């Protein structure tokens, strides 16, 4: 099933948005996220579905839960790295692979 436009699912109040905002703005939090992701996630009131999706790199589940695609793209870069390597980046490839999965 093809995904509908993100606005069909968008939920502005999802805590995942706040997590991504905080990670972008806080270097120490990012370092802790890389070293011990679970301890960072413990600090956020994520729904069990959000947490499971983040831990499983299930971007499609997050999209369907209502995370804005910009935040999804940024989350993928926070997880996989933000520097572009040869060819398409690992972050964007992992994200699209998840979104297009059955």
């Amino acid at each position, binding site marked *: 099933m093809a995904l509908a436009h993100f606005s069909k699912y968008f939920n502005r109040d999802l805590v995942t948005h706040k997590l991504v905002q905080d990670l972008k*703005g806080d270097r120490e939090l990012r370092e802790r996220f890389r070293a011990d992701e679970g301890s960072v996630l413990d600090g956020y009131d994520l729904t069990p579905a959000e947490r499971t999706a983040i831990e499983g790199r299930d971007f499609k589940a997050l999209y369907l839960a209502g995370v804005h*695609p*910009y935040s999804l793209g940024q989350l993928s870069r926070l997880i996989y790295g933000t520097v*572009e390597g040869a060819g398409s980046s690992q972050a*964007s490839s992992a994200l*699209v692979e998840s979104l297009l999965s059955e």
Partner: protein
Amino acid sequence: MADIVFAGAAAHAPGLTGWFEKAEAGTQAEVRDAYRRLGDEIQQAQLDVLLIVANDHILNYDPSDYPDFVIGTSAEHTGPAEWFKPWLAVDDYRMPGRPDVAEILYERLAEADVRVVRNDELSFDDNISVPVTMTGFKEHGTALVPVIQNCTVPPVPDERTSYALGERLGRIIRDELPDGLRVGLLGSGGLSHEPGGPRYLEIDDEFDRWFLDLLAEGDHEKVLDQATLERMEQAGAGGTAELLSWIVVMGAIGRRDCEVLCYAAVPDWRCGVGAVRWELDREPATTIGG
């Protein structure tokens, strides 16, 4: 009475600075020349202040509380935001602001039917960093007032709302900014792309070329009829609607001849890249309405 003496628009795709070399040499040259031309025209216009109309990428506000427009009132603008540095690969920049101009814009735009706020601590991502680097503007020493626009967090002010906001912006510039002030307008964003969505790796070059042709045709009413927010979303959800910032500039200047400076669809850039300028020194050559 201030004067609008420069108007242009261009994409702010991060690939332009972060991974420019992934395009073929000829494309690189074409795109580099177009942005340099914009930079040269900005410099030759001897601006007192450049207004860059652009979205941010959910940087300054959480989606739960996302204003429609934000006027950057700081006396100095610095960037890029720290996390975006490796992504954009641009040198740090520091540009003067114009708080006096920004405050007038804020106070008068706040009367519009959209939510306008001011912010003297704006952070910048691709939106400002890419155009000021590619055009060389950050080296000019000219003042900047950022006008940050919501192009992506629903509900997004649509094409007619954006155009009307631009018309209001143009009136404020002409009627309420200090006499003789030379003002430039740069729309920053687009063209087709779908950042973070299922078509993240795709570019709708057919839409992009159609849109640029439509602008060159010069009929603003036709642009508003056809290049709707809905049509932009079809060409790449969440990202293509950054072209609404171009629509704001068009509203501010009214119908003027538009020259397309470049277009490139480079798959690795994941975003259609184009740049245009509007001819402000003479009335439009075309006789169509709009």
